[in-house]
């Protein structure tokens, strides 16, 4: 193990480490504490410049109430779910199939297609922006959640294919060979053998895509204009313009926007990390 485990070190070092660990964590999380603290304050504290002192009033619920009733925050949050969940399902479904095809069959263009998926996944969004916006206009889906979902599904299929293909490729080939010998059709192999085995990969992709799409800001601004379809990231940005110095409301709104991916992360941390490291984890 590297570095040397702390319990093999002198007792003094152990104490120093145990003291430094929480201190470093607190320093690291200062920005997060900042919004948490501010979300419970009232306007009085903000204008008085009381940012780090004890809040003079506990107003979290009143702030939440303000944010939810005076702004379209509920609408934004719902929109975010309406964009995120279908994208997650769509991209994972498509990439199970593409991943299976690329991992399992030898054909001449296999690697080329695989690399096209990877390359597409890394391109700057700006090179896609104008044609995608145009296309979305033409099919009448500009400013709709469906339009945004369709693009997200297509784009995320690149990353998901990379992940799925590598995952399926690492599965024992004998299983598939044996099934083929028994006369199972290719679709049966996919459905009955591969899909159940890819469950961990599907879980990893679901959390990752959920976070990516929930946090997307660029495409939300390019493809959506009105409150009716705007997800929470773009909504927060537009509220920022109205709130100017109402930092207590801004903080409360930010927390609302951050909660779903944070919950997702804590519930599925192992899968999340497996996804990020492209499956390079042993648990």
């Amino acid at each position: 193990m590297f570095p040397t485990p702390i319990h093999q070190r002198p007792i003094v070092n152990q104490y120093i480490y145990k003291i430094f660990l929480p201190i470093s964590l607190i320093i690291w999380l200062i920005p997060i504490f900042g919004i948490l603290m501010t979300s419970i304050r009232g306007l009085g504290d903000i204008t008085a410049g009381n940012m780090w002192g004890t809040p003079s009033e506990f107003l979290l619920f009143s702030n939440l109430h303000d944010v939810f009733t005076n702004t379209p925050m509920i609408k934004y949050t719902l929109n975010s779910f309406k964009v995120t969940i279908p994208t997650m399902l769509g991209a994972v479904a498509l990439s199970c199939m593409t991943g299976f095809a690329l991992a399992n069959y030898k054909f001449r263009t296999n690697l080329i297609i695989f690399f096209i998926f990877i390359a597409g996944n890394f391109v700057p969004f700006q090179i896609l922006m104008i044609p995608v916006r145009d296309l979305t206009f033409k099919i009448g889906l500009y400013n709709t959640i469906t339009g945004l979902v369709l693009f997200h599904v297509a784009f995320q299929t690149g990353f998901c294919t990379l992940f799925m293909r590598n995952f399926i490729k690492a599965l024992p080939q004998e299983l598939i060979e044996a099934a083929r010998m028994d006369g199972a059709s290719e679709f049966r192999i996919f459905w009955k053998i591969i899909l159940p085995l890819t469950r961990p990969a599907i879980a990893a992709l679901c959390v990752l895509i959920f976070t990516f799409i929930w946090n997307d800001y660029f495409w939300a601004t390019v493809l959506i204009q009105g409150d009716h379809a705007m997800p929470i990231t773009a909504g927060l940005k537009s509220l920022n313009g109205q709130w100017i110095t109402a930092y207590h409301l801004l903080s409360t709104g930010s927390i609302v926007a951050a909660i779903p991916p944070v919950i997702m992360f804590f519930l599925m941390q192992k899968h999340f990390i497996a996804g990020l490291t492209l499956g390079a984890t042993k648990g």
Partner: protein
Amino acid sequence: MELNNSKSKRITWWQRNQVKISPWIFLAPGLIFFSIYVIAPIFVSIGISFYQWDGLSPSMYVGLQNYIELLDDEYFYISLWNNLKWLIFFMLAVPIGLGLAIFLNQIVFGIRLIKSLFFFPFVISQVVIGLIFTWFYQPNYGVIAPFLNLIGLEGFSILANENTATYGIIFAGLYPQIAYCLILYLTGLNNINPEQIEAGRMDGAKGFHLFWNIVLPQLRHATFLAVVVTVIGALRSFDMVAIMTQGGPYGYSNVLAYYMFEQALSEYGYRMGYGSAIATVLFTIMMFYILFFIYRMYRNEREDNN
């Protein structure tokens, strides 16, 4: 007999060919979707960069005019230069992430929770991070205002100063990026072969020597991923700039990604052709890294097959 024969023939036809046809059936939906929304637009964008077009009226072919204009555009150079700053300083996320990973790679009480809390910033939207840091930087009622006053910079606004704005944004951007690199390196440290470390220790390797010669080479995969995602992140930087400064003051914190958006889709006008030319430049820069990544993957594939 006759009937039976033809039936078995049909089955053999499908059996003989299903392995050939199936991959295409499985690939079709994903590949078609991806081609329409990702692959084709790249070429369309490059095409548009040779036109003058406001998105509504008919477009006009202007050849290389947009690119010639770019060469003379002061704001283009500022953005390009800022992208370079992003590339250089964003890279700090890699060593800092590695350092933190080594610091946290211990087994003590509560370490799992502590690690998760360190990952935290990565999970949160860049919009939220950008808003938090903008507020931190506020000259009068911001969080760092007391510190600025302490060093005699009363009322100094990091994001409104042309010399500091970009660094202020990069610093905010580093926050989630360090967390990302930390995740990659913690996983890497977890996967290190303990026997090699022990063997190194037997041979008297210690501290930095052990780290540099035995640990770091084993973290190659993590380092590679960390560098790739950080480079891509630096070149893709858009959200932070859009939230924190919108390229200001006077374009001094602009980056190519945001400048393109501003030219093509904002109140400054709808210059689709010019925007596409900027996007094409950004794409070309990115292509180097993409090809490098693919080359590495290709090499790995070949090793796997041999």
